């Protein structure tokens, strides 16, 4: 876990962090979000001492990081940045192996690890000997994630890692990352300025502005009434709509819903399933001007999902 207590940092007269308190429990993903220059990247970099702090205390797994030699600390923290920063003269395998080699793992173990990571992130084995120049943006970003995970660090820092790729690739990367995170349960601090990305990936959304944390909580929390004016305007009036993408049909307790009685969906119409997101379901209602749509729970068994069910679910998560 990560704990920051009253962290201050100034660059000359410019105060970048003004007394930040933050706690990220083990295995959770905290997403720092805010406009550019709000200090979110600086905050991230204080955790692996890429940025030194003026005062305050930062603990990683109950250890004050000030007591570490910076290099040794960084080898225990995975790091992944926008533009990836892969070494162009190294092969993919050598890029992923950087930290394990710094930690002097035996070569045989490194190779096993590299293969496993690449398989997990959906990269073909033959890519091991390619140079970064030969990869697409999305592939390079996957390699970047593999590299951050290589030495199996308990903590992962990600600085807008999916910022530089096209929207379709970004969505794929986000889903791949969610899957990896579900399997590995790392303690993650993730920086982004994209509200939808934060909603999708965060266990806890942390909204920052002008070097301070204004509000933090589960993504659902911000679907209800938000008091703080900046948070309200930054997350935007469409926030509940965006939040729908985070949940899928199975999150709303389909077992309790009545079976579908109306006419069966016409052929050619999109079939909604358990893993369809609530946003898709709402879109389908709007596309056909309906208040309720059928969702397939198992083969040939449909339940009725209504607009009220969606709104009710949002209301529920906003109370958590």
């Amino acid at each position: 876990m990560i704990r920051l207590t009253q962290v201050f940092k100034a660059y000359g007269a410019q105060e970048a962090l003004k007394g930040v308190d933050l706690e990220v429990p083990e295995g959770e993903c905290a997403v720092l979000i805010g406009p550019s220059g709000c200090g979110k990247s600086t905050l991230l970099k204080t955790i692996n001492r890429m940025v030194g702090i003026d005062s305050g205390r930062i603990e990683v797994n109950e250890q004050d990081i000030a007591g570490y030699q910076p290099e040794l600390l960084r080898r225990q923290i995975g790091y992944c940045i926008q533009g990836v920063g892969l070494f162009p003269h190294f092969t993919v395998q050598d890029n992923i192996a950087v930290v394990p080699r710094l930690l002097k793992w035996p070569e045989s173990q490194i190779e096993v690890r590299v293969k496993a990571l690449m398989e997990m992130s959906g990269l073909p084995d033959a890519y091991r000997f390619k140079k970064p120049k030969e990869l697409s943006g999305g592939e390079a970003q996957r390699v970047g994630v593999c590299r951050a995970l290589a030495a199996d660090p308990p903590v992962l820092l990600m600085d807008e890692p999916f910022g530089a790729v096209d929207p379709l690739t970004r969505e794929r990367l986000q889903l791949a990352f969610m899957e990896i995170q579900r399997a590995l349960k790392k303690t993650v601090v993730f920086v982004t300025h994209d509200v939808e990305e934060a909603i999708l990936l965060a266990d806890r959304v942390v909204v920052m502005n002008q070097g301070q944390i204004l509000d933090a909580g589960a993504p659902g929390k911000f679907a209800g009434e938000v008091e703080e004016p900046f948070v309200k305007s930054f997350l935007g009036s469409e926030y509940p709509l965006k939040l729908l993408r985070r949940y899928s049909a199975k999150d709303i307790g389909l077992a309790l819903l009545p079976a579908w009685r109306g006419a069966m969906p016409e052929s050619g119409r999109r079939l909604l399933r358990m893993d369809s997101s609530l946003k898709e379901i709402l879109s389908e209602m709007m596309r056909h001007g309906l208040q309720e749509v059928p969702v397939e729970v198992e083969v040939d068994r449909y339940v009725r999902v209504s607009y009220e069910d969606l709104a009710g679910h949002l209301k529920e998560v906003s109370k958590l």
Partner: protein
Amino acid sequence: MKETFLKARVGLTLGVLGIVFLPLGTFRPNRVVRGIPLDGEALLEGRILLALAATGLVTAAVIYALREREGKLFLLNGVPWMLSFVPGLLMLILSSARPVGGNFDLEVARMSLSSGYWLVFAGILMLQSGAPRGGVLMSLTVLISLAVLGFGLAPHLALYKEFMNIEVAFYAELRRHLTLSLASVVVALLPGILLGYICHRHQRLREWILGTVNLFQVAPTLSLLGLIMIPLTFLSRNIPLVAELGIRGVGFAPAFIILTLYCLLPITANAFSGFDQVETAVVDSALAMGMTRRQIFRQVLFPLALPVIFSGIRTAVTQNVGNTILAGLIGGGGMGALIFLGLSQSATDLVILGTIPVVLMALILDAVFKLVEERMTQRAGVTHDTLDAGI
């Protein structure tokens, strides 16, 4: 107009000017007296076959240079190749040519190559540079001429006679020249790269360092030579150890020091821009993964900057080969010693004998370094690696 034709026409013009208006050679009964110029007409007088051959070749060259389209005619495309032999052949002809009516002592009489000859030489190289495989053609031309000289096939050329006079010294000075120009680069390497790294890491020191090394570069080399003689003389007179090491105000030491300072700029400046062009994201992620500064330098910065650093070394070497000539002025040796001796004696051929190796050394070293540089760039992954190493 296509570059090939343009170069061919310029080359042709130069050659024709050289043959028609300028003397090809100058015959001197001995080393000191004023010579008798010989032009093309004088050379061909009474040699019908030679005259015919020469006319044929010039005609072919004119047709080659003035055509509008690239033809498939084998004979015409062979013109640049045939021209490769001309400078060498001219040497043979000039070596055996004598002015009419005169009784000369062939032991001391000699034939200097004159302005017309060099113009023809330049014209041929120009024409060849535009032709396909121009590099090979030009090298061939130079090599044939060198072979004619080196194998003593043109014994009465002044160039050859001067060479025979100083043969032992020639090779010694050549070695000395190479040692001076290469060793000073080697010595400048470490400080140069280090300074470049400091410029990369510390913005405040950057201007100072680059300004200082730039000062060495823009200050006239000659004045630097003069400046350094004073402290070195002082040191060698007052500190016995310095004198024992053979360091004096003149000779090898000041030349070596100046040359080293002189090539600091290209090495430092290139090292700096080499380090600086490495993406920030790459260096940042190296740092964030827990590499020490030393590891980052050795594993990331240096290999990625190497092609750029190397091109700085290439610049330093080629410019040093030329600058080393000045070492001759202060008793540092090298080809400069021959050149300045020739200048003081008004012996043009000795000057040329000293200059040709310098030009050749610079060209050859440049080509070799360029080749290595290309290989390096490929390996650093800066250009797209076409080699697919996948299984």
